[in-house]
């Protein structure tokens, strides 16, 4: 069927509302951000000092702590991509197969995303606390005497992983409901047809569920990457980037600069960070297309 130009024009109408909002409220501020990033400015001063790409140069070659924070976020993202998404997929599959009480589980698994960050931060700090922490009590009870007063969030070895655990716990619910929605849109007929062909449940999973769910899983992965790389609230409420800066992530760094009157510099950091995210997401899309 040949599509005429007139049709193309009417088709374009579908995206006009989104496009207008996007251009005004997203693209314009981003362009302005880019503009601010070539100035040295503290957000209040009347005069902004034009410095060209000097701030970019400093970020790229002279700011190891920013790149360290990027690695931290990358580490949490790797964990989230594997463990969090694996858990989300597993739970979505389990709940999807008509287990008893699936309604209850479905509701419960979305509680962490719904909960306020204040509560989550407080609770998990109780868990990881080195003085009366729940986890230490538990491990001590199991006979691991060395964990008697281990402060999980204050030791370099465990701080970032501990934060990652909380992040994954808070986030798996999103992946869970998106994947569940994905599983629900797979037509039942396909399973029936597979069963008629004599496929067992593993074969049904491999030949029907997996290929049809793959695109949704890719979307969930990209959202996980973007969501985790931009992690902020949890870090701030649990460690403030400590111990000694070992759990800083890009957004906490950007805020740190912003709060210290380095407005222009922090926007340049935001731009650099955005470019890194762009590259990562593009790579993710590219590879998932290749696997398909």
């Amino acid at each position, binding site marked *: 069927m040949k599509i005429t130009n007139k049709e193309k024009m009417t088709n374009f109408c579908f995206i006009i509302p989104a496009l207008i909002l996007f251009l005004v409220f997203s693209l314009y501020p981003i362009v302005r951000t880019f503009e601010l990033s070539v100035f040295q400015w503290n957000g209040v001063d009347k005069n902004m000092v034009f410095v060209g790409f000097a701030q970019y140069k400093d970020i790229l070659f002279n700011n190891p702590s920013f790149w360290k924070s990027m690695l931290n976020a990358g580490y949490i993202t790797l964990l989230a991509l594997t463990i969090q998404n694996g858990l989300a997929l597993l739970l979505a599959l*389990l709940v999807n197969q008509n287990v008893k009480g699936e309604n209850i589980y479905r509701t419960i*698994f979305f509680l962490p995303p719904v909960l306020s960050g204040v509560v989550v931060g407080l609770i998990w700090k109780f868990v990881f606390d080195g003085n009366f922490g729940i986890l230490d009590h538990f491990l001590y009870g199991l006979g691991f005497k060395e964990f008697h007063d281990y402060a999980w969030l204050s030791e370099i070895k465990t701080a970032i992983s501990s934060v990652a655990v909380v992040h994954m716990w808070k986030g798996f619910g999103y992946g869970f409901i998106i994947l569940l929605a994905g599983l629900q849109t797979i037509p039942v007929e396909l399973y029936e047809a597979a069963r008629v062909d004599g496929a067992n449940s593993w074969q049904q999973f491999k030949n029907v569920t997996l290929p049809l769910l793959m695109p949704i899983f890719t979307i969930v992965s990209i959202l996980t990457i*973007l969501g985790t790389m931009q992690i902020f609230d949890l870090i701030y409420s649990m460690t403030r980037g400590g111990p000694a800066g070992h759990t800083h992530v890009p957004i906490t760094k950007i805020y740190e600069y912003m709060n210290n009157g380095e407005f222009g510099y922090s926007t340049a950091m935001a731009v650099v960070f*955005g470019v890194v995210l762009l590259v990562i997401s593009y790579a993710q899309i590219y590879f998932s297309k290749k696997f398909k």
Partner: protein
Amino acid sequence: MDFPKLKRSISATITHFILIIVSLSCVFPVFWMVSSSLKTQEEVFSKMSLLPSTWNWSNYVTAFVKADFGQYFLNSVFYTVVGVFFVIFISTLAAYAFARLEFFGKSFFFYLLIATLLIPIPGVFVPLFLLLKNLSLLDTRTGLLLCYISNGLAFAIFLLKGFFDELPKEVEEAALIDGCSRFGIYYRIALPLAKPAIATLVIMNALTIWNEFLLALVVLQDKAKMPIQRGLMVFQGTFVTDYPLLMAGLTIATIPIVIVYLYMQKHIIKGIAAGALKG
């Protein structure tokens, strides 16, 4: 011995074991939040007991009054309902077009939209604020809503396009031959089929808008327009935090969103029946 039956019951046990362990970790904070909301300030710290020694239900009344929830509640409902509606409406239209229709600059616009997901918020905060000022939208509900709606779009379009891509094309083609307009196909066929995805998005956007407060606090000046999260600030003192009242306030603020979830998640599941009937 009935092996298949035994096997099934073992796998059911393992399934439930995993589900219950994860569930417990999710329920505990809620339990703790509600339990703390009924304690006294002293008790929250001194005794790490699971249940309050006396159940101070009056904390809820105090929290409600002190946080002016009555005033903020309707605002939040308004922002959430209108915001979510427009996010869904605009994003389904656009996502459908990106998935199914041909037009100029399709992939260019798609990737441009997606790029907004990548720029972290702190950078665009001040430009956005200045923009609202220039449009005379500072301290208006419209301004705040427009920000909320455009914030939700990229994510929604991205997710929905994925779902529309996967939907079977045959029905639509049949409808097209029957003389149905493109909008008719979108509205009558594509939307019902994508119901689970839409329900998911409603939940997520409702959650985001309901919990948002930084933008609201900065954009709005007039207290009468502020959302519910504004009320919760009252308990988070610079020095003294009133934990029982804070927890009571948080509980009150969490309930509506749980209700939205309970209601919408049924539609995530209903999709199976709808899809089966039409597909």
